[in-house]
């Protein structure tokens, strides 16, 4: 149970960290100054959430690892984020689509986590849900704006959706850890979240005039750590560079 809870917190924390890191890659290079600021805002929220979650994961594990130990000293195989969030930024269409496909899941996940039996996780969720509600609103609006914008933006958005769709199945895939969390009253039932997720995604895609991909094979292996994509290693090489080059120092 303790191991499962630790794993579960890593999943939550790593999702936030990896996606926040991806967004932070945009910093200074956004398509409009206002959107540069908005994306940085989301990155800030997510890295902030990652800190609380990884700190708590370290406590639950009980062997003295800190948030930074967990973020900076685990290799690819130790990371528990879903494949979706580690996908590269691509163009703004890919970034927004990745964000939306994740936010829609994350929103329902955290709505449920507010009622978790675990008090500390409940408190983290209570704080995070406000931020995540804003993230979902932001990414939904941009899905619609770009999907229903110009011919070019529509095509770019459809291409991004087609590329990323196969990573959406993993979000609500039920693994052993999810079952243990559900039984313990800590984590939500992913079946019911899947229903809400599908409904939300369909509604936004329809408004964005985008075609929902059908019958695509769903990739997974990120949240179990069985098989990440090649992208994660490069992300970690950058994220962890200083700590790896100068081990054991205070920064």
């Amino acid at each position, binding site marked *: 149970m303790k191991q499962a809870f630790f794993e579960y917190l890593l999943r939550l924390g790593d999702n936030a*960290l990896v996606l926040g*890191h991806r967004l*932070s*890659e945009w*910093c*200074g*290079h*956004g*398509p*409009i*100054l*206002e*959107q*540069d*600021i908005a994306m*940085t*805002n989301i*990155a*800030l929220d997510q*890295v*902030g959430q*990652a*800190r609380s979650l*990884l700190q708590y994961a370290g406590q639950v594990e009980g062997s003295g690892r800190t*948030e*930074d130990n967990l*973020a*900076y000293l685990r290799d690819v195989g130790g990371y528990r984020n879903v494949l979706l969030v580690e996908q590269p930024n691509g*163009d*703004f269409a890919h970034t927004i689509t990745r964000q939306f496909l994740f936010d829609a899941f994350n929103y329902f996940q955290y709505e449920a986590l507010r009622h978790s039996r675990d008090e500390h996780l409940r408190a983290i969720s209570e704080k995070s849900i406000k931020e995540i509600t804003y993230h979902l609103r932001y990414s939904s609006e941009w899905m*619609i*704006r*770009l999907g*229903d*914008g*110009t011919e*070019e*933006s529509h095509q*770019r958005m459809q291409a991004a959706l087609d590329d990323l769709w196969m990573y959406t199945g993993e979000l609500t895939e039920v693994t052993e850890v999810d079952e243990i969390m559900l039984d313990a009253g800590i984590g939500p039932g992913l079946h019911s979240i899947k229903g809400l997720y599908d409904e939300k995604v369909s509604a936004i895609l329809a408004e964005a005039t985008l075609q929902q991909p059908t019958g695509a094979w769903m990739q997974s292996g990120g949240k179990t750590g069985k098989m990440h994509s090649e992208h994660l290693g490069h992300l970690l090489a*950058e*994220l962890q*560079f*200083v*700590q790896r080059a*100068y081990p054991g*120092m*205070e*920064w």
Partner: protein
Amino acid sequence: MDPKQKALEAQFQARIDADEKIEPKDWMPDAYRKTLIRQISQHAHSEVVGMLPEGNWVTRAPSLRRKVALLAKIQDEAGHGLYLYGAAETLGIDRETLLEELHAGAAKYSSIFNYPSLSWADMGAIGWLVDGAAIMNQVMLTRTSYGPYARAMVRICKEESFHQRQGYEILLTLCRGTEAQKQMAQDSLNRWWWPALMMFGPSDGASTHTEQSMRWRIKRKTNDELRQQFIDATVPQADYLGLTVPDPALKWNDERDHYDFGEIDWAEFWNVVKGNGPCNRERLQARVKAHEQGAWVREAAMAYAEKRQQRQEERNINPRGLKNLAG
């Protein structure tokens, strides 16, 4: 000059001399307007280009706490860019035009951002020295004669002094750390010290704009005065860190009650201004690339806004069609 014009200018100068603020709707000489547009837009561009050397370390920040703090700092700079473009717009020039000038290489920004950020310590040195030098200038500008610029500066200054402390604290941590960390900090000071001094611009004798700007109270201190003020404030801070300022001529002068310091390499200064600094091309290219790659996003946002507006109008004409149109 015709007498009417002359009277207006005399009146304008009298207001300046009485320390009144000039507001957007007030009459002002063309040259005053032009000077302000040049200065405010340069300042705005500096904030935005300045995001690049720090953005270079966001993905490599050595702890999550540092990552958050650095991101927030860079985001503040983007916000400063926005206020300043806004202040420039009150003078009748829009952001799009100013950006075109920047991207065409026709507008300047602070040369300091044409230097590379090579180590984590540079995030400390930039905050401490670059934001520190900017503060000297900006505190003065809170009292500049043009109202919107002065007010933008008040907001900005508060954040800049926070940035400076944050940068200093990064270096303090390194200087209290291992030998390798301390060396990293010293190396960073060695690279940033002189470019930071150059931020105040040419010395008073060589500065073409200073005199008129002082008369209009756009500036209230000369480049050399500000530079001296910066050195006097910063050297004791370097001492406290245990770092050596890379200037053998640096020495406290009891008589002057200031630090004496060595000659700035003006050849390097003008060379970077001319576009030959280590990163001039890269910085400009990065901005142009972001702008060009963002073009389809901006176009789509505009097209969508127009569509919405149109649908709204159609709905107003034919309220019963509401459901159809919204669907």
